């Protein structure tokens, strides 16, 4: 298990556990058994650098919604009119 992720989890669970000052934070990070680059990324509060060092996913997609509840059914798979637009996008209450 990554010590960095463990550290982030502990910090998320209890933000006061590592002290509230920058010096307290730096002192805690210095005690972690992680390499220097990871320590620096934590001190810099740089998630992108941390992610690179930990081989996390480079891009994340997380839309899980559509403009209309009908879109799941109403949008034709083959886009019959060729404009990439749902043919039937009336809101349910107006039907």
């Amino acid at each position: 298990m990554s010590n960095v992720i463990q550290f982030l989890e502990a910090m998320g669970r209890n933000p006061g556990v590592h002290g509230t000052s920058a010096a307290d934070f730096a002192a805690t990070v210095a005690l972690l058994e992680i390499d220097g680059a990871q320590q620096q990324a934590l001190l810099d509060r740089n998630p992108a650098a941390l992610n690179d060092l930990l081989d996390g996913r480079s891009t994340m997609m997380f839309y899980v919604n559509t403009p209309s509840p009908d879109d799941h059914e109403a949008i034709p798979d083959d886009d019959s009119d060729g404009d990439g637009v749902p043919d039937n996008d009336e809101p349910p209450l107006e039907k």
Partner: protein
Amino acid sequence: MEQHGSLACVGLGMMLGAHLSPRSRSHIEQADVVFALVSDPLVELWLQQMRPDVRSLQPYYAEGKKRTHSYREMIEAMLVEVRAGRQVCSVFYGHPGVFASVPHRSIEQARGEGFQAHMEPGISAEDCLYADLGIDPGWFGCQHYEASQFMFYQRRIDPSAYLILWQIGIAGDRSLSRFATGADYRRLLVELLAQDYPLDHEIIAYEAATLPITTPRMGKMPLSGIVEADLRMETTLVIPPSRPMQRNHTMLDRIAALDIERAGGISAPSIQTNQGKQHVECHPVS
């Protein structure tokens, strides 16, 4: 007949380590199969530490692919395991039931096929927004719309309430296949909003913090500024009220008359509706 497989859609909350409820954690730890869709790669790594066999739903997305197709594939992937008799847990960032059709649809489908399925709530971006911005939706009221839906459909905006637009990064995407739209689309959105708000009205671009080492984004700008602003997948637009609330004097007068009648022991009045008058049973308010 209820079958053996089951589905639990659980919320992970927004911040790594901070928001996961004990019930959701139990589902994650005890399920036979765990799927995940989260918003931060480090959060995904955290989940992988809890469940090394977690199956990310990220591969179902692709630029140019309709999101509705991706969503159907995600739902089918979950249902295949449920049908095989497994206890399935699907983990979603924030709250799995807020601006998230996949969890709702998968639960509906599982139940429709006779399986047990339910949702465990999580701390959503909306919850974080209220805390970070110091907004109480009860003060003036609060309207929430998915940004594209807001553009595609005729809505009645109340500028004396908060207006919050979600998925602003893809505002105006009719194809449901883009990862971002852009300035031209947002210019149309500004035109639409300018019917109810002045162009210099101060709005807020908000992003919840997903790590305990970061802070939320709370960028203030004039309404006109959103055209060129950096609005991303995780950005939510918060538009504070631009007008004071207007008293409804007609209703207040009728309530006052009702109060006087009740104080005098007169029987309950009738209600005037579009369909005519209806008798109403009155009970004291405790």
